């Protein structure tokens, strides 16, 4: 029998504590520590849950309020008396590009050292270069070379294709030519899009490829094609290619949407590729019978004027094209391209 059982069951616990001496001293410490831990853990959980709740609530409200980025104004200041538009004709497309750009002041006028530049050709369709559905790869490569030579920090080449991007980029020859000239080719994959504020008459927001958000300068390199709905697709319509998402809805008001997009981008320079143009069955083309070899390059900063010039190559009247009228109304330029200071070279 233990000494406690000997002394009887009515012994109060305090007696036991006194008898064990050392043990008595320890128990209050243990009790305090345990109590401290319990209080501590409970308060930490309480504070934590409140903090988490507040944090999640803040995030929810935060997302709705976040402002969408807008595209920069990529234009360079006008120079008094400078040539505003150059048209060059000749058998060598790359040479045409060089001469035309030189005529408007050289790429150095438009791209400063270290600037990030995006070159935007038309890579919309799964076609070979000779079918004139995409920009001539030689023209794209030459533009990239000129931009790089002017000291650009980064040169992107990109477009949002209509057909499968992989096949458009390779079969058009543009990816290979651009990479060889030193550009970073950006495919229109899902992670590459950013939501931006368009603030147009028709379009409020849109998903745009990141190079257009990040770049300091934007160079438009479209080609000249007939288009069933808009009549023609040239410089201004090329900006469809910055958009991802449900852009097929834009056709319900095609001319206004073209102008909204052209107004959003405000490019630095436009190099209109009319080496091979598509006269019929555009914008997809396909038959070589619809292609006409024109061996022409037109360069300028007024997209409306360049589109008006391109329209004449297709045998169309600029005043018949809705987006040219709307573009003038929006103050993007003039359709009377002859009124600009123009230089024409080559026969």
């Amino acid at each position, binding site marked *: 029998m233990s000494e406690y059982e000997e002394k009887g069951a009515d012994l109060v616990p305090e007696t036991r504590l006194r008898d064990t001496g050392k043990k008595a001293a320890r128990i209050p410490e243990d009790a305090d520590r345990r109590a401290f831990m319990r209080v501590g853990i409970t308060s930490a959980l309480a504070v934590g849950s409140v903090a988490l709740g507040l944090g999640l609530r803040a995030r929810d409200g935060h997302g709705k309020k976040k402002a969408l980025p807008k595209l920069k104004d990529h234009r360079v200041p006008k120079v008094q008396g400078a040539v505003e538009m150059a048209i060059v004709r000749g058998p060598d497309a790359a040479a045409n590009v060089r001469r035309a750009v030189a005529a408007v002041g050289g790429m150095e006028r438009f791209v400063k050292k270290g600037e990030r530049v995006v070159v935007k050709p038309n890579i919309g369709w799964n076609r*070979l270069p000779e079918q004139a559905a995409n920009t001539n790869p030689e023209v794209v490569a030459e533009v990239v070379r000129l931009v790089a030579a002017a000291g650009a920090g980064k040169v992107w080449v990109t477009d949002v294709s209509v057909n499968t991007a992989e096949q458009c980029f390779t079969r058009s020859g543009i990816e290979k030519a651009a990479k060889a000239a030193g550009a970073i080719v950006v495919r229109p994959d899902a992670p590459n899009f950013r939501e931006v504020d368009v603030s147009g008459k028709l379009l409020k927001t849109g998903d745009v490829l990141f190079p257009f958000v990040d770049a300091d300068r934007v160079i438009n390199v479209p080609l000249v094609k007939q288009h069933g709905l808009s009549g023609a697709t040239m410089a201004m319509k090329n900006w469809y290619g910055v958009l991802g998402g449900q852009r097929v809805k834009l056709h319900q008001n095609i001319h206004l949407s073209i102008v909204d997009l052209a107004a959003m981008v405000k490019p630095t320079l436009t190099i209109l590729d009319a080496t091979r143009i598509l006269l019929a069955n555009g914008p997809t083309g*396909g*038959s*070589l*019978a619809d292609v006409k070899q024109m061996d022409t390059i037109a360069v300028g900063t007024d997209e409306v004027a360049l589109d008006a010039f391109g329209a004449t190559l297709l045998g169309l009247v600029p005043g018949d094209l809705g987006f040219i009228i709307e573009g003038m109304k929006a103050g993007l330029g003039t359709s009377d391209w002859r009124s600009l200071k123009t230089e024409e070279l080559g026969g």
Partner: protein
Amino acid sequence: MRYPLFIVLALIPPALIGTLVWQGRKAPPAEKVAAKPAGGDADAALRALFDLKLAAAKVKEKVTLYDEKGLFDYIDGAAPIFIERNFRRLGATEMSTPEGSDLVCDVYDMAAPENAQSIFDKEKSSQAKPVEGWPGAISGPMSFVFHDKRYYVKLTAFDAKAEAALPLVARALKEKMQ
């Protein structure tokens, strides 16, 4: 015995897989789109045949081109025998001699020489006379028919003066086709 066998077996997968991967590394060459534009050049070539600098007869109006649908409108029930021989296009026009006699000139582009030969043989009537020195031609009353390269030509006159001009027109066309 075991070690050589081991080594042989050990080498088989790398050799096999290596060959398959090596063979596959080259992408198959990108096929070109049809080099000959459907329609374009051939139509222009057909029209160009009528550009004859001939005194005996001159083209009165512009040349009309007919495709398969148009062919039915032009020659009605005779169309199927052309179509089943890969008929591509008909260039038809009226010509007139200096005296004012008319003749009709039909040039059929049959897409290939075999087809032109075939339709020539099919349409040849028993009354047709061969033309001396020209195996690919026959002449009949008020008509002259020949084939050369992928073309099949039918010339029809309406009076004796025009009939006399037919062989001259035929020869001029033949020369244009070379």
